[in-house]
């Protein structure tokens, strides 16, 4: 009898513990999802931006009384989690959207329709934003995200390495051939201790895609139906890239194991091409006083000695602020998006050195956000160069990953470059046909 009493007691205790756990889980679950939101769950993938964005969000909290918890994830984890969340019906309230996957999310009604709210807003007018980015997040005349930022690409060089090997610094007159000569001079003189340049297969937007467009080639056709990887101009650019890989870069395995940023920061590599979203990494680096920024080189296709339209391209892209279609606090989510994307806070975002703005003409103060480092090159790229929107389609990630996988071989043996590009074009066309 006594045993039985003990057993019953234990069982009740266990049952209580279980229900207690259950109640707690339900409690935290409804915290983000309750109708009258007292906190919004925000997810982003760039840790370098979180401080500035949280500061802007806190000002919104001060007037709205709704807390904003910004969580940062790594790029890969971000998309895995967002997709799992979308599948399971539990997305963050407000989050970043990217051109790679925007179409997929919009087609499946995962994002909140912002049309009526934009119409009613006195702060948001879609004509004030970069059209390439705004248009990316629009489908059948429905706007699903508001541009948060835009980016450009520039060339970062380490003056110490250039001085050591007595090579002149990059400037706006450089063509890609000048770039090659300088990079090769450093690589030859460096004899295994220093290299001119380094990019890995995945450095497309901030690397080889720019060269492809400078040479007059393209990655994907306007109608997103065919690959441009076997276009003669693209192949010409890729052959040039092959020359760069062979004569001016460390072995691909070295780039892959260490990453371009590390190689550059440790003085092994003299030049790196970087996106404006990455400036802070180099600004806060140990040797940042040695770093200078220049515009990307151009390709003088018509040989007139001047930079013409399309000869100095910068692949640009922009993140969009989106809300979950099934969020329980759509009004609060919209107000936060409106706050982030208003002219005032777009300027502030640039002021704080978070990123350039998605709002036209709100990025000027970005150049002065990095005291002691001249980053005018990023703004010059936009004024003097040609902006090309980041190539994308419905399933960008699929062909982008496939490109990278195939190019590892070409990076290691540049004589296979043309054949690799043709294989990529074939695979990509097959993938695009299924979209």
């Amino acid at each position, binding site marked *: 009898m006594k045993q039985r009493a003990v057993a019953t007691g234990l069982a009740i205790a266990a049952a209580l513990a279980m229900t207690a756990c259950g109640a707690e889980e339900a409690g935290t679950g409804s915290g983000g999802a309750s109708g009258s939101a007292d906190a919004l769950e925000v997810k982003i993938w760039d840790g370098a931006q979180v401080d500035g964005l949280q500061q802007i969000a806190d000002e919104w909290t001060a007037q709205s009384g709704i807390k904003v918890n910004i969580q940062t994830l790594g790029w890969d984890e971000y998309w895995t989690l967002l997709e799992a969340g979308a599948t399971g019906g539990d997305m963050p309230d407000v989050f970043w959207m990217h051109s790679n996957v925007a179409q997929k999310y919009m087609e499946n009604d995962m994002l909140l329709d912002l049309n009526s709210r934009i119409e009613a807003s006195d702060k948001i007018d879609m004509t004030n934003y970069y059209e390439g980015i705004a248009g990316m997040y629009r489908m059948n005349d429905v706007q699903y995200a508001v541009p948060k930022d835009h980016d450009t690409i520039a060339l970062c060089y380490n003056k110490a390495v250039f001085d050591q090997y007595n090579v002149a610094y990059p400037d706006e007159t450089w063509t890609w051939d000048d770039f090659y000569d300088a990079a090769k001079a450093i690589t030859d003189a460096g004899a295994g201790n220093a290299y001119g340049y380094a990019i890995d297969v995945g450095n497309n937007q901030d690397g080889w895609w720019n060269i492809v467009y400078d040479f007059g080639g393209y990655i994907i056709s306007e109608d997103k139906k065919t690959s441009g990887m076997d276009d003669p101009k693209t192949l010409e650019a890729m052959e040039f890239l092959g020359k760069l890989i062979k004569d001016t870069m460390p072995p691909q*395995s*070295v780039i*892959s*194991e*260490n990453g371009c940023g590390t190689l550059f920061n440790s003085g092994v590599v003299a030049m790196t091409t970087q996106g404006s979203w990455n400036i802070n990494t180099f600004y806060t680096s140990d040797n940042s006083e040695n770093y200078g920024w220049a515009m990307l080189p151009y390709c003088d296709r018509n040989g007139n000695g001047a930079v013409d339209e399309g000869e100095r391209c910068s692949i640009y892209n922009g993140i969009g602020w989106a809300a979950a279609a099934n969020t329980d606090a759509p009004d609060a989510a919209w107000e936060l998006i409106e706050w982030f994307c208003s002219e005032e806070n777009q300027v502030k975002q640039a002021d704080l050195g978070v990123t350039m703005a998605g709002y036209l003409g709100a990025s000027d103060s970005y150049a002065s956000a990095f005291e002691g480092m001249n980053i005018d090159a990023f703004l010059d790229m936009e004024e003097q160069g040609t902006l090309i929107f980041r190539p994308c389609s419905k399933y960008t*990630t*699929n062909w982008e990953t496939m490109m*990278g996988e195939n190019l590892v071989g070409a990076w290691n043996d540049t004589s296979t470059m043309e054949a690799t590009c043709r294989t990529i074009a074939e695979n990509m066309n097959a993938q695009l046909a299924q979209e």
Partner: protein
Amino acid sequence: MKRKMTKAEKTEARWCWFFIAPTMIGLVVLNFYPIINTVWQSFCETGDFGRGNTFVGLKNYIDVLSGGEFWISLWNTFKYALIEVPFSVCIALVLAVLLNRKMRGRSVYRTIYFLPMVAAPAAVAMVWKWLFNQQYGLLNHIFGTDTAWISDPKIAWVSIGIIGVWSILGYNMVLMIGGLQEIPRDYYEAASIDGATGIRQFFYVTIPLLSPTIFFIVQTRIIGALQQFDLIYMVMDTSNPALGKVETVVPVFYRYAFTYGNKGCGATFVILLLLVILALTVLCQKAEKKWVFYN
């Protein structure tokens, strides 16, 4: 012959169900349901976000089996298991025997060998990744070599295997120490009276009497090694030139299911892996009768 349960037995049975219910519910919700769902998905062309799955029969299986990727990754998986299982079992056996004697600092050594098991696999992988780094890694620095441990397609699979062995060694060792302590001392006394040396005692007393434990470890490690994922995911960058010679089935499944968003093909990869593991397990069970000694 079936006999009616007494009242007390019935009550006991009810309580049994009550106590195993938490585990059962967990298993059904978190394991059985996903397994069935995965099997179903492997016969479907899956839509985005789990919507609009359409039944396509064996199409995924034909695609996966006729493409090279499955066979290459399966071969890579076996290569990994061929390093991890034999080495981690043999070394652990020797260590267990050595650490089962009376010696100074015995528990310190046992703790040190077991530590990798406590560390998070991701952390272990990151530390090894830097040890193996060609330019700045400790290994090349100590040996004065210039080896691309994890980027050279010829040796990367061995490097990954070494991490695997190192990670699991302590766990195998602890299980074996447990098995060793079950062996009665009398056998060793009898053996030494008969004049058997330490080595002969090891082969004729220890190994036969430890064979049930060894069998258990071999069996579970084969299953574990074939499911290898985190080491490869963490150590091998997607642009690593040796990836194709190392990538096992589960990372390939992950790539299909989560990078490409092709859940159907991804499911097919893991179901095929499941069948391979099932077949090997049956073989192991058959072999058990041949060499495992139960007294």
